[in-house]
């Protein structure tokens, strides 16, 4: 055990029903450092943070603060021990003033000492250089300032450890810089900061040390300046560079002559920055990048799932306007959402009802699909896609993840789309079904359907896509095809040119 740790987490174990979320993870935060906690989805970052803040209880292991063992049973406990957390979603009340947000719930006095609080709040705000006044209503401040007020509250509570969980995801560049200045200032005052983010560049800009987790295990702790970006990426994803280089190449396909099905110029939405994109008839291409790089946001913009704010879209050479999903559907675009629980399946409805849903929407509510027709469709696709269900009337919620995914696929296939967008269609499903879905994608492409495919697993993308669009920090940073389609090249592009 290292001696100079402000916060020491030793051999932390945590098991959820069926999943080992953390096994034997060590973490050490020193006084006056900014320590980035990195890992892909499911790596265990948030579990570790939640154990530290008392939201979850660990199954095994030990937490020491300044050498003393501590037990953290609730967020209040964490606060009393000097561990404060600022979450991605702001956990303050927008309808009361800045000063009240900084002091409410901290003492048990009967009367509110309004003037005293406001004076104290103004002092702290000035000291930390936060551009807000104590008497402003919190909701009237920008998100960045609200986040800083949350930090100011933590600082005033004499926190020794400050956890910033994805604090920058809703801030713009200027606001991010303001936040970083504040972080550096706190660091110089001896506060230990745990910085959780998925923005690689920000990690290198502000952190001193990086701890990488993968699949609930510790990969290692590194000094930021000694870990090149490309190595960080490979540690997060879990492939050694050498191993990556040795993988085979995919064969060249003669896509060049085929005509474009869909072309977008400068397409942007409420969540995606402007980007150019095209796909040819019968092509399979993909968006890749780390979580939060903007890959899902981009395809959502293509489908009109988020508010489209600009850009010029052509389908089969004709200018079209896609602002809502129904527009996209009418132009033959289908979209399988990333989060099938939220955006995809309707768990209470039967397999049959889920399958005919998209077709029904396309037909409009005045042309109902007859029961017998729906039953034929359902039976057909249950057979074609090999959906394992008791019957076509079984509620979808009772099916396994892979079979739910197939039901949604069937839903879109029924509409005979020209262009299908599959966002993480293979997440959380077993290997066999994964392969089935990959084969299906290739078969569809042969039949002339264009497919855009997104997956966190790079290998899977390399197997299915003939062209990869690489995104980093919400920008397209490269396009790989033919011989460039290797894991090494993908990693290098994801990590940035300096590797």
């Amino acid at each position, binding site marked *: 055990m290292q001696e100079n740790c402000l916060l020491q987490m030793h051999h932390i174990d945590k098991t959820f029903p069926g999943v080992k979320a953390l096994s034997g993870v060590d973490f050490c935060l020193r006084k006056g450092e900014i320590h980035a906690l990195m890992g892909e989805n499911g790596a265990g970052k948030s579990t570790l943070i939640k154990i530290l803040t008392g939201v979850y209880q660990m199954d095994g292991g030990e937490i020491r603060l300044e050498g003393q063992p501590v037990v953290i049973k609730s*967020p*209040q406990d964490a*606060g009393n021990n000097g561990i404060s957390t600022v*979450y991605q979603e*702001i*956990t*303050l*009340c*927008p*309808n*009361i*003033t800045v000063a*009240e*947000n900084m002091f*409410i*719930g*901290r*003492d*048990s*006095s*009967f*009367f*509110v000492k*309004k003037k005293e609080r406001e004076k104290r709040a103004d002092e702290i705000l000035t000291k930390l250089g936060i551009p807000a*006044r104590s*008497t*402003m*209503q919190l*909701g*009237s401040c*920008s998100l960045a300032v609200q986040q800083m007020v949350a930090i100011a*509250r933590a600082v005033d509570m004499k926190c020794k450890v400050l956890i910033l969980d994805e604090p920058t995801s809703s801030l713009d560049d200027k606001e991010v810089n303001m936040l970083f200045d504040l972080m550096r200032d706190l660091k110089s005052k001896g506060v230990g900061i745990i910085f959780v983010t998925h923005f690689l560049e920000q990690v290198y800009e502000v952190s001193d040390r990086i701890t990488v987790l993968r699949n609930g295990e510790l990969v290692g702790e590194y000094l930021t300046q000694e870990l090149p970006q490309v190595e960080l990426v490979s540690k997060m994803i879990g492939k050694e560079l050498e191993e990556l280089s040795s993988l085979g190449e995919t064969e060249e396909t003669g896509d060049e002559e085929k005509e474009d099905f869909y072309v977008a110029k400068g397409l942007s939405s409420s969540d995606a920055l402007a980007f150019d994109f095209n796909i040819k008839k019968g092509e399979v291409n993909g968006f890749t990048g780390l979580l939060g790089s903007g890959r899902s946001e981009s395809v959502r913009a293509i489908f009109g799932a988020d508010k489209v704010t600009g850009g010029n879209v052509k389908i089969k050479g004709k200018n079209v306007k896609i602002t809502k999903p129904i527009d996209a559907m009418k132009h033959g675009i289908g979209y399988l959402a990333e989060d099938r629980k939220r955006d995809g399946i309707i768990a209470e409805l039967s397999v049959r009802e889920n399958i005919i849903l998209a077709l029904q929407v396309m037909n409009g509510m005045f042309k109902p699909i007859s029961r017998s027709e729906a039953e034929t469709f359902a039976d057909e696709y249950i057979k074609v896609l090999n959906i394992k269900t008791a019957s076509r009337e079984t509620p979808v919620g009772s099916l396994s993840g892979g079979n739910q995914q197939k039901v949604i696929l069937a839903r879109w296939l029924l509409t005979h789309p020209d262009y299908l967008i599959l966002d993480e269609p293979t997440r959380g499903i077993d290997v066999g079904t994964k392969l089935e879905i990959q084969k299906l994608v290739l078969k569809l492409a042969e039949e002339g359907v264009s497919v855009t495919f997104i997956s966190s697993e790079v290998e899977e993308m390399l197997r299915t896509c003939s062209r990869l669009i690489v995104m980093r920090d919400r920008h397209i940073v490269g396009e790989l095809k033919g011989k460039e389609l290797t894991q090494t090249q993908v990693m290098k592009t994801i990590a940035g040119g300096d590797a």
Partner: protein
Amino acid sequence: MANFKFKRKEPLTDTGLLMTITICIFVVMYLLAMLLLQGGFLHAQQIFDMLNDNASLIIVSCGLTIVMIGGGIDISVGAVTSLTVMSCVLYLNNGGNLFVSVLLALGIGLAFGLVQGFLISYLEIQPFIVTLAGMFFARGMTTILSVNPQKADHAAFAALRDIKIEIPWLGYVAKNGNVVPARIELGVVVALLCVALVFVLLRFISLGRGFYAIGGNWQSALMLGINVKRTRFMSYVICGLLSGISGYVFMMHTGAGNATNAAGMEMNAIASSIIGGTLLTGGVGNVIGTLFGTLTLTTIKKIVVSSGLNDPWWQSITTGGMLCFFILLQSVVLGRRAKKKQS
């Protein structure tokens, strides 16, 4: 030249803004009524009558404002008021003690507040369902106590009921030359006292600020270290207590218990709170606004009657229209604010 030091003025909070709008609309409306309809509107007694007739509504609205700021709803208040009236009248008529009758009123209100607050906060049952049940229960109890109207017949109570504050200089000269002084009932004093106390509670007391916090975002409030369950519980307890007080004031005004007393009062109280700038979504509201909300609602009704539209449905229609107008106004004003902040 004197060295003026200006205090930097913050833009109004949402609460302040909505309240200001209500007060302005009330003043303009009343002035227009004075100009165009004249008659009773020119006498100060008009306002006092509005207060005399609606003292219990004001008290109930204060309670609802608290609950609504905390993000909840309580629709049992009218029924609890009615049950309190009936219980107290029967108690007094059976030779009860005046002081004990006041305690009885407070006790009934408090009991409803405690039970409903417990079910809502600690057992996490929907407030609408709980207070709907409370409403039916209280109404049923009232009818069980007496199907027929009961007139209070109690000397000490009659003396208390007849106490009126007279202000001669605000009075008017009747046709026969006599000066009729302005009259204010005791209930109005109680109502205004309640408004003042709730105002202090909401503004200067930690518990009161907690109502705003849990109404603004209860998850955040929890993270900020507020005991959300206890705070929510207290909002219903105070609301229940105020319903009890409202019942006693109602009894002092009418002097009789009736199973249909205060019918629909909960809806008028919700309307008053909303017109006064309390948001149904919680976190925004002010009891001074609520007082003016009640006055606005009442003034509208008086204007309708003075305009010769005597049928009762005209009052309902204008109340509905008024409520719609205010909700629209609130969403437009707050929507504009949010938009301005984004740009």
